[in-house]
């Protein structure tokens, strides 16, 4: 097995992956280097604690995402330096059938790629324990298709088209629905929703917290 600098770090708590040993409670034992996959070895205890402090994810969820990430990332790279493309993240089972997956990927990726921490950040926003303000913030970014800082009629029509996913959509239906949404939540009558108006509407919505969450990331 090749010698790489990560193996020789002093703060490494875990054993190199080539040895099948007993894992401690905090780290999970992984097998040998898989074909075409990232170097698989355990996460540092300190990293795990830090991720738990910085995100809303539980320990099991973080380890699960770590697993999933390792299965997908390119071979021979340390997980902290590896990146996934937006297509790879879009094809995760959690996002595969989501009509907004391209927007989710655009909002959470940096420079068009996902690092491990970007994936964790995404999972944290969608986790069950996340606070409403965080979810509303990211929901607004996801729903703003043209990225002008507002959800305007164009964005609303795009959202409706994605939700209904049908080929025969009459213009009347779209304009009707759009005008209804705007009449309910547009408080200053400028035909678009600013962030505060969106926040206000979602605070009143009973289903938002229930529907804006993902808890299955692959394990």
């Amino acid at each position, binding site marked *: 097995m090749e010698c790489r600098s990560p193996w020789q770090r002093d703060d490494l708590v875990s054993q190199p992956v080539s040895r099948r040993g007993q894992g401690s409670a905090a780290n999970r034992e992984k097998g040998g280097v898989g074909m075409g996959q990232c170097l698989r070895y355990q996460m540092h205890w300190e990293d795990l604690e830090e*991720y738990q402090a*910085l*995100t809303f994810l539980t*320990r099991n969820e973080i380890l699960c995402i770590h697993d999933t990430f390792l299965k997908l990332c390119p071979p021979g790279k340390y997980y902290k330096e590896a990146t996934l493309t937006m297509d790879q993240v879009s094809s995760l089972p*959690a996002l*595969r*059938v989501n*009509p*907004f997956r391209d927007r989710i990927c*655009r*909002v*959470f990726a*940096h420079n068009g790629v996902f690092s491990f*921490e*970007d994936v964790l*950040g995404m999972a944290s926003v*969608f986790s069950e324990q*996340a*606070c409403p*303000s*965080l979810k509303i*913030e*990211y929901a607004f*970014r996801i*729903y703003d298709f043209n990225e*002008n*800082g*507002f959800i305007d009629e164009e964005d609303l029509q795009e*959202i409706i088209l994605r939700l*209904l996913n*049908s080929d025969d959509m009459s213009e009347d*239906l779209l304009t*009707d*629905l759009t005008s*209804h*949404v705007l009449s*309910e939540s547009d*408080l*200053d*009558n*400028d035909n678009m929703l*600013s*962030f*505060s108006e*969106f*926040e206000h*509407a*979602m*605070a*009143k*919505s*009973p*289903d*938002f917290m*229930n*529907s*804006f*969450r993902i*808890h*299955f990331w692959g394990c």
Partner: protein
Amino acid sequence: MSESSASALPAGRRGRQPFVHQDSLSLDSSYFSSPPMNFLQELPSYRSIARKRTTILSRDKQSDTLLKPTDSYSSQLEGGITENLNSQSIRKYALNISEKRRLRDIQETQMKYLSEWDQWKRYSSNSWKRFVEKAREMTSHLELWREDIRSIEGKFGTGIQSYFSFLRFLVLLNLVIFLIIFMLVLLPMLLTKYKITNSSFVLIPSKDIDIQCTVYPISSSGLIYFYSYFIDLLSGTGFLEETCLFYGHYTIDGVKFQTFTYDLPLAYLLSTIAYLALSLLWIVKRSVEGFKINLIRSEEHFQSYCNKIFAGWDFCITNRSMADLKHGSLRYELRADLEEERIRQKIAERTSEETLRIYSLRLFLNCIVLAVLAACFYAIYRATIFSQEHMKKEIDKMVFGENLLILYLPSIVITLANFVTPMIFAKIIHYEDYSPGFEIRLTILRCVFMRLATICVLVFTLGSKITSCDNYSCELCGYNQKLYPCWETQVGQEMYKLMIFDLIIILAVTLFVDFPRKKVIPVHTATEMRERAPPRRGSGTHRSSLFLCVPLPQMSLIYTCTPSPRQFRASNSNFFFLLVLLIGLCLAIIPLTISMARIPSSKACGPFTNFNTTWEVIPKTVSTFPSSLQSLVHGLTSEAFAVPFFMIICLIMFYFIALAGAHKRVVVQLREQLSLVRKSSRSRGSWPGTVTQDTERKVAPVRGSGWNAAAPSHHRPPKLCLRAQSPPASFIH
């Protein structure tokens, strides 16, 4: 500089609200802090502005002081830092992980400049929060059926998942009720019976009661047929009657322990009151969220378009077929809503003669509905009387099946009625010409009413039979002692039979109807599951927790159900289930209170043989209190206290109703005001202190790249690093 401070803004609103925003905030804050507007502070929009204000101002204060460090600012800085640190935990910031890390490093460096006390306070609150989180994580593992319900959510959506979490709530409620009854009533008896503790039963001989009332004939013929045990199991008579399942088992007046005497009748009554109160409180607590949302909204219909479009997609769906179904149901729902709008408009445009015709037709059809209901109730009444009269025949005079049929006749009639009436109601409502949403709601309401009312009829029939005597007077014992020597047990037996029959029917329908039907016709609506849901509550029997509750419907759901095109929403169905449960509970409490307070307790069995009515235990216990306490209790229960108390409660209720109305009006006024401000600012050009639409539009695209998370974190670190390093240097001199 502003970019770097903006980058560390909480909730990451860097760019959407530029620094001009501060003046408009001050305008808003002065508007909101004037006295008549103080109650506006409850509105969510104000709270979000307030949150932004504290964090933005503290941020800017902090940046100012960090740039120009002098000692006089240090206390201000401390205040600013503590305010900043206390405002949000680091997770709630809408930043990615590396930025949060840097922010945390900054916070930690700044914390060094706090006093010892503040540091210790901060540290202890952090450790407490971590402890609470770990505890919460551990208790979430104890949650019953967590993985199963999650997988249901992934496959079928949150609507059906809400049904299953409601079932789980029912199981937990039943378990808690069982524990209450076990601890208060069963445990002392079991301890004495099996000689675990050194205690004995206390039996007070009843005085001045006619000996005839205490006779309880246990029928035991010479030869017992082998199937009599089976009949006993199904009807709750015979050997089952003497178990702890029924009231008659508790014919004991007390349990004497070494140091005190445990008053069993009092414990029995108090445990009943306790579990009813607990159920009521728990159900009301759970349904408060649904009610609150209903009250805040000014619109009439429960589901708004905002909710359906922005919160319409269940992000947890992972199944391709379920996703297609969800798309289909959203299409259906939105189209149906628009259709309903059109129908409502059409209704509003009706001419007066059409309205008259419709209303007279509706009156006629409602009379038909009432007639159907009356027919069902009469059928149940006759069935119950027939069953009660013929139940006493000897077993050997009857054929096996006939005996069971007579025993279960009320249950059979109730089930048949509940099966037939929804079909009749569905047919009738077509002619009543309501909007589709209202049609569905009214049909469901009628069916639910039907179910609950049939049980009421059963209980009422039994009650009338118990208190009415045909040829001789009831004055001997106060109730029909000839037919019902131990009437509580017999009422309990009827409830037991109802429960067993329900269970048999559910099992039979799942196994013999749903599974074959899945093979033949692969579509089954999930709304039928909801109609089977409303639970029945018996009175006077023990409740045993039905752990069969969740696994069976889950199996049925997964193997037979393909969800219907019209899905129901989690929030709506939650509200509906809890409402039905609440109504059922209230309806169950009524016969219980009547029987406790009015009907004399049976003298042949049960713990209340020495009392006139069940409720009499309480006055007798109160009379053993010291005299001051006695007079207090008498004062609290007298009319002189009750009437003013009731009036005060009414006044408080009116106050809250008026407050809610005032809030609604204020919301409408604020909306109008906001649009007026926008319009006037647009017509006049930019107004000092307000962010106009134009400036927002101009500024936003420039900053647009800032808040899109695709913005590289690479060019931000240098600035943040500089800030992290500058404080120490700047504070040295």
